[in-house]
């Protein structure tokens, strides 16, 4: 079940491993910057997956240049569009996370989220 499929789709396998790495980093890292790096790895892995699925060996990007209008000559453009939308989304959430990190760092002079929580509890008392 795994042998030939895994070899033929090694790109997809790599993207899944990258996704897992990014996901674990975002979930488990204590440092906020490392969390954001994890987020970006996770999102990029998804785009790699999409791009691989849209690509067909031996065909070119769907831009008509030499008057070739045959569908068989081009790859599927939709995954590219999805990746583009995804990149926009991931840029905006990264920016939001970074700005939150700056706010927290200015206030508590640390990037460790758990430490910030302890500081907050002390503040309350």
């Amino acid at each position, binding site marked *: 079940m795994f042998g030939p499929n895994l070899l033929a789709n090694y790109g997809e396998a790599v993207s899944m491993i990258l996704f897992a790495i990014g*996901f674990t980093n*975002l*979930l488990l890292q204590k440092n906020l910057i490392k969390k954001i790096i994890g987020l970006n790895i*996770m999102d990029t892995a998804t785009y790699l997956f*999409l791009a691989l699925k849209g690509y067909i060996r031996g065909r070119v990007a769907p831009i008509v240049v030499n008057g070739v209008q045959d569908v068989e000559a081009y790859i599927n453009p939709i995954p590219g569009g999805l990746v583009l939308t995804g990149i926009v989304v991931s840029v905006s*959430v990264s920016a*939001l996370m970074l700005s939150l990190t700056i706010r927290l760092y200015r*206030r508590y002079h640390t990037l460790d989220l758990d430490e910030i929580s302890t500081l907050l509890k002390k503040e309350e008392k």
Partner: protein
Amino acid sequence: MEFVQNFPFFSILLSLFSGTVTSMLNGKWAKRVNGFVISAVMVMSAAVLFFVLKTGESYTFMMGHFPAPWGNEIRVGVLEAFMALFFCVIMLLSLIGGRAHLKEEIAESKQNLYYILVNLLLSSLLALIYTNDLFTAYVFVEINTISACGLIMIRQNGHTFEAATRYMIMSLLGSGLLLLGICILYDCTGHLLMSHIKESVVTLWSAGGYHIPLVVAIGFICVGLAIKSALFPFHSWLPNAYGYSTVSSAAILSSLVSKGYIFLLFKICYRVIGWEVILDSKIINILFVFGLCGMIIGSLSAIQENDIRRMIAFSSVAQIGYIYMGVGLGTTEGMVASVYHVLSHAATKSLLFVAAVGLTDASGRSKKFSDLTGAGYRNKLAGVAFTVGSLSMVGMPAFSGFISKLLFATSCVQNTPYKMLPTLICLGISTILNAIYFMKTVIRIYTPVKGSNDSILVKKSVGYAGALVCFMVINVVLGMFSTPIVNMIQIGLEMFS
């Protein structure tokens, strides 16, 4: 095509564009524009609801008149129109109820920003409700997350920044999983429109192909949306986010944002993957188990809490457990009960948040239980409203919570041989736990203080009182006249498939 059919599209665009307009206005005018937009969307949703009920069938709306594989689509049925209407009502009332606090807690120069976020949130909720395209749904899920994060952190202190960061981290984990699930579904089927995906998925599933990728995709989507709507093991971000943000934000977040994701999950179950395939994949059993755990553990955490806002927040975890438990039953009756509980919880939780803030105001801004003693005498209306909300959450007859618990109990007796007993037991335990912490609070706020000091004067505001009364009326209406609403939900679910 009738003119009314354009209204869903208009309401999404109107709320999106009014955000741009609001950015140029000052706080006062931003508030007015925002109120006008929400009311306009409310009226339009009501018109659409009447239209769909009259014709008795759903319709799809082509964006920009491009037919299916190229263009984007909106789909409107009874349930969608009703949800849009209901969400608008709750949002408007939450904003009116928390207006006094908004003025105090948000800097003068940032008031209009709050209304931009609310507009953005409204448009993304409407798009989540109406869209017929899976990738559009993903984009609006992210917009929803960003605006919800803004709603939390607009009251600027350390707690809200920390809560917003935790919220963002959990939400991004959820949306990453959702995106990957959508990508896998797209790769298996080659479509992004919900109805087309469903056809392919059903054919693939019955032909026996791609079982593993499909199950993985369903799993990713379910877990992603469960994280985003704070199902039990993923609820760590919730208490601080609801407990420290300004009261309108807490009410909107608990009653609308998480419900938007749950509604999307319902839609995906019925319209993207197909109910039979979902049942066959056994994923709902996992949701069922976590829903049951959430019901118990959310209530237990709420009992230990010493802060009234955080207690209500933990109660949300339990209520979301109820909703997922209803989905997990795997019957249409369970689904109806879940949808009803979405409505009932949205109406009750926002009432509780708004009432609790009246009580804390009357107790010198303290959220601790020890200071709340006798608060029900100091702010009578808030006391009554809190009692109504508590009774509804516990499940007293005549209030909305009773009907949803009744629906859950009757649905689990029908057609679910193995799930009946655990459901009934957990429902019973959870109700008792609910009663413990809510009645504890109600007794506390009605315990007279010796040498009663009415020195803390509460500024009476017509808007706040009006919002509370409206919330109570909605609760009683949902509790007393549930038959037409349940019928509407049944028709809506039939239209889904």
